[in-house]
C-alpha cells in the first residue's frame, strides 16, 4: 500500500471535528510531531465502529511528540516524549 510519510518526517495532526467514533484524541490534534515508524495498513476503525468492513485500509504510523509541544505546563525533561498511533488521513506534512 502506498504511503505519504516516512520515519523522520515532521507531521501535523489535523485539527478537525468529526462526529462518530475516532481514535485520534483531542490532546494531539493540531500538534506537530515526527513519524517514529510506519506500523502498516489496518482497517479503518471509524467505519468498523458502525459494523462496516473497514475498507479501504488506512496507513497507520507511530508519531513521536515532545511532551513540551503538547502541554505548555509540562514539568518533566525536555527530552520526554509521548508516542501514539495516528492514521494517515489524520496527518498532514508540517
Amino acid at each position: 500500500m502506498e504511503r505519504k510519510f516516512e520515519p523522520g518526517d515532521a507531521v501535523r495532526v489535523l485539527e478537525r471535528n468529526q462526529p462518530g467514533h475516532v481514535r485520534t484524541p483531542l490532546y494531539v490534534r493540531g500538534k506537530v510531531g515526527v513519524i517514529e515508524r510506519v506500523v502498516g495498513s489496518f482497517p479503518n476503525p471509524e467505519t468498523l465502529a458502525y459494523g462496516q468492513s473497514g475498507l479501504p485500509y488506512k496507513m497507520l504510523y507511530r508519531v513521536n511528540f515532545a511532551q513540551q509541544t503538547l502541554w505548555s505546563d509540562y514539568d518533566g525533561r525536555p527530552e520526554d516524549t509521548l508516542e501514539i498511533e495516528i492514521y494517515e488521513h489524520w496527518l498532514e506534512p508540517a
Partner: protein
Amino acid sequence: MRGPQDLGGLPAGPVDPVVHEHDPTHWEKRIDAMMMLLFDPKRRLARVDESRRMQEALGEDYHKYPYYERWLQAISWLMLEKGVFSQEELDEKQREVRARLEAERSGT
C-alpha cells in the same frame, strides 16, 4: 467536541496502586467472556470498535458507569442494533430475571 472517553490530559485525582486494585469478580468475568465470545472468529457478531462506539454513546453517563457496566451496556445495545434480540424480548426477560434474583437475594 470531546467525547466522554477522551480523557488524555484532563484533570483527575491521584492513582492509588493499592486501593485501585481488585481482581475481577465472577460477574465481571461473565461480561468479559460474553464480549470475547461475540468478538471471536466463530461469531464475529461485534467488533471492538463497535463496542467502543456504544460506550461512547453513553455520553455523560460514561463516567457514572463502572467499567464492566459500560461493557454490558454496549453488548446489550449492539445486540439490539443487530436484531439478535428485540427490546420487547429484553424487557420481558429482565422482568423474569429480576423477580428470580430478588427471590434469591432475599433467601426465599
